[in-house]
């Protein structure tokens, strides 16, 4: 359960709307069920009071919306950012993707967001309602009645291995500031690295074969803000609308991951939205782990204007052949 309440956020939004600091609010809107929250723009206090929500299902990262929203909006936009969202926010600023002056950031604490799929798995299909309480979730189901779940067990993957509760950008902070966390997010990557190449190949073949090229991972990704994606551009030589075979599946995901190297903040949105549950974060995290390993720790978005590893170098960088061995966990 989130420590900060919907009412607190509405109160803050009201204040900023009324004193003229902002003219609109980017927030979460309640849906049909307890869990289907949609990002939305609120222009008035009435709209806020009617539909605004903040609960354990507000996973969406608003940073990317700012690219388009700041162009459209006349005045300033109030945006509520969770700690991990602020990294994406900074990264977009580093890449000059929107005007900082048009945004008012309120940093809000996050206790981790919940994965509906995980609830379905744990409590059974047919969720009538989900109630978030201090000691876990109470899920009312059609077939299993009320089921109590520990929040920790149904968190989104990215929240289970949360890397930071610290906001790296805000104009104002609600609640307490957290810390950067020593996270276990690379464990799964390491497990894969320890497999034999054949096992790894089989793993990725199996995972990527489910891809339906819906582009949700790309379209939600705060690093993928290209005016035109190479995969949509017939002149790029790699354009395609559907993966015709396993090569094209790999091609899309390798190139996409490569294009966000050093720019991916590991916000985990790609894996959250994948309708096929492909663990796409494992590709991005491999790059992040290698970067940390080869060139020293680098967290994209930790500060505005930092130079990403691929647009930087030192004269004594690791050679590619050694990198492959070192990336595999061997001593190079």
């Amino acid at each position, binding site marked *: 359960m989130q420590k900060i309440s919907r009412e607190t956020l509405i109160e803050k939004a009201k204040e900023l709307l009324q004193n003229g600091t902002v003219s609109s609010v980017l927030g979460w809107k309640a849906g049909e069920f307890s869990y289907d929250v949609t990002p939305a723009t609120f222009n008035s206090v009435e709209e806020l009071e009617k539909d605004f929500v903040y609960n354990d299902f507000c996973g969406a990262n608003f940073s990317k919306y700012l690219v388009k929203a700041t162009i459209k909006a006349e005045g300033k936009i109030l945006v509520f950012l969770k700690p991990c969202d602020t990294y994406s926010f900074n990264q977009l600023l580093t890449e000059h993707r929107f005007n900082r002056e048009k945004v008012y950031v309120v940093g809000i604490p996050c206790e981790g967001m919940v994965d509906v799929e995980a609830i379905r798995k744990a409590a059974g299909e047919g969720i009538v309602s989900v109630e978030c309480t201090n000691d876990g979730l109470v899920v009312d189901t059609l077939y299993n009645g009320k089921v109590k779940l520990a929040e920790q067990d149904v968190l989104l993957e990215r929240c289970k291995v949360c890397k930071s509760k610290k906001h790296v950008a805000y104009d104002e902070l609600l609640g307490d500031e957290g810390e950067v966390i020593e996270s276990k997010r690379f464990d799964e990557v390491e497990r894969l690295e320890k497999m034999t190449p054949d096992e790894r190949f089989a793993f990725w073949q199996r995972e990527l074969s489910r891809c339906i090229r819906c582009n949700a991972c790309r379209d939600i990704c705060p690093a993928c803000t290209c005016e*035109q994606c190479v995969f949509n551009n017939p002149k790029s030589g790699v354009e395609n609308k559907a993966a015709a075979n396993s090569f094209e599946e790999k091609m899309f995901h390798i190139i996409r991951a490569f294009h966000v190297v050093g720019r991916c903040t590991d916000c985990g949105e790609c894996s959250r939205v994948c309708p096929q549950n492909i663990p796409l974060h494992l590709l991005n995290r491999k790059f992040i782990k290698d970067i940390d390993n080869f060139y020293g720790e680098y967290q994209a978005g930790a500060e505005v204007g930092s130079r990403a590893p691929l647009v930087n170098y030192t004269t004594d960088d690791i050679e590619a052949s050694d990198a492959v061995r070192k990336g595999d966990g061997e001593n190079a």
Partner: protein
Amino acid sequence: MQRIGVFVCWCGSNIAGTVDVQAVAEALKTEPGVVFSTNYQYMCSQAGQDIMKQAIKEHNLTGVVVCSCSPRMHETTFRKTAAAAGLNPYMVEIANIREQCSWVHKDMPTGTEKAIILGKAAIAKVNLNTPLTPGESPVTKRALVIGGGIAGIQTALDIADAGFEVDIVEKKPTIGGKMAQIDKTFPTLDCAACILTPKMVDVAQNEKIRIFSYAEVTDVKGFVGNFTATIKKKARYVKEDVCTGCGICTEKCPQKKVPNEFNLGMDNRRAVYIPFAQAVPKVATIDPDHCTMLKTGKCGVCAKVCTAGAIDYTQKDEFIEENYGAIVVATGYNPISMDKFDEFAYNQSKDVITSLEYERLMNAAGPTAGKLLRPSDGKHPHTIVFVQCVGSRCSACDEKGKEYCSKICCMYTAKHAMLTRDKYPDTDVYVFYIDVRTPGKSFDEFYRRAVEDYGVHYIKGMVGKVMPEGDQLKVRASDLLANKQINIDADLVVLAAAIEPDKSARPLATMLTASMDTNDFFTEAHPKLRPVESPTAGVFLSGACQGPRDIPETVAQAGAAASKVIGLLAKDKLTCNPCVASSNEIMCNGCSSCANVCPYGAITYVEKEFRQPDRTTLVRRVASVNEAVCQGCGCCTVVCPSGAMDLKGFANNQIMSEVDAICK
């Protein structure tokens, strides 16, 4: 669709010996776009070139593929031939079937098969070639030299000698730089002023040279041949064209307690001053930080005594904008601060000094009028310890020293030691060193003379600690050859401080988009082959701004930089390489990745208006490549995630079509 002609060369038996040229020409005939295919003994001969010219005209060819030797050999030849026949020279591609085929493969079938594939790849590329025209840009025939030390002076004189205008911008009130502060020069021991000041006078009298002293470059725009620089002339409160340099004001000024920076603070000057007797321009300058008139409005002595009426308390900083074709950076060096070297007690004892301070102590125009006297009590020192490599070759803690060798210290320390023993044979002189490095003409002989003829004690090992005790300095050091620790009671300790680039270099590099290394020395375009050019076209490097160097090297480099500038300014127009990057503005995100990796600073960002689907206008930040500056490496094309950046002549689709042709 192109109309391509294929010309397969035999190169006598060089190619035809291992490649069935007939079969290659035949096989390539059916490739898409090919309308003509032939083979000939020597394509590069006049007769061969005539065949090509005739075919271009007869078959209305729009593209040419020559299967021959390496493009590094005859690409230019065949491009000229094509141009002579009216075809754009960049519509010619070479398939290298000699060096990379016939010469490395032994049997005919293998060679022939590979030659056909290489030919297909070249054809695939030509199919996507577009005619390229090299751009031209005019050249402003004036050079800017930033820094008025010996490097800047020499460069300016050499450029002016060739008949081009030069402006020198010097931030101090006079040109001359560090060399003006030096007493004698190694290895000949002639007096620095005697060889420098005539050059300074030459500069002042040269009609082609303008000196902006007490001035700084605040902004540089443009590119090779077309720079615009903004120069800030700081207010000196003295009318430069009126002041006669008589010096009366500098004697009458009541503010006497201003540390004299020319003598490194070892004596005082007045608030109005001329740095030294031979200053150029010989004009007084009022130091606004110390002038009572400027601070409180009460004084005006200098104005009263100035017979020329040159004093003007109302002067303001003046900004001048000027166009240049080339820029030479000659910002020089400074000794590093000794503040972090507590072990040498620099801040505790006045008798621990740096080598540059020692220069001033030895100099006849210095604070002691050339007599070697201790700064603390004015007594003659009898035991002097020189410590080399203070802060040089120090990689332990980058805050403290510099990782590199400062290069000049070994020689000037030998010079100091020798001069001291020469003038004052009653002194004991010890030099503590890690290595003695004297790779220069007559340098090692010079150092050996200090040891053998002047009896300077060179001890291998470093001084560990200097402890002021009474009026003496207890020096504890190691003697590595004797394998023991030694203690010396010294009267004076001289530290050979490492040198670092002037602090103004970093912001200047940003302005010029010239690259720097981690030590803030300017990077050269190529360490061996283009040592005086910066990777940024039109920006040249002179002197210690590029790395530690002594006077002879600096002068040599200054001349080299000048000759490069002259070579540039002698052209009326610059022809640009047409194979440059270009950005598709509609696809550009404005993320700066390309600008970050560009080694030449060829990419800038501009705000462009775009029409939106809803018919509104949107202003977006997009990359723009300066074709005059881009060298065509293509690094930017790969970091561009949207693929907005592409390289003409080596475009993404061209290279991919080559890949396709090779792999099919």
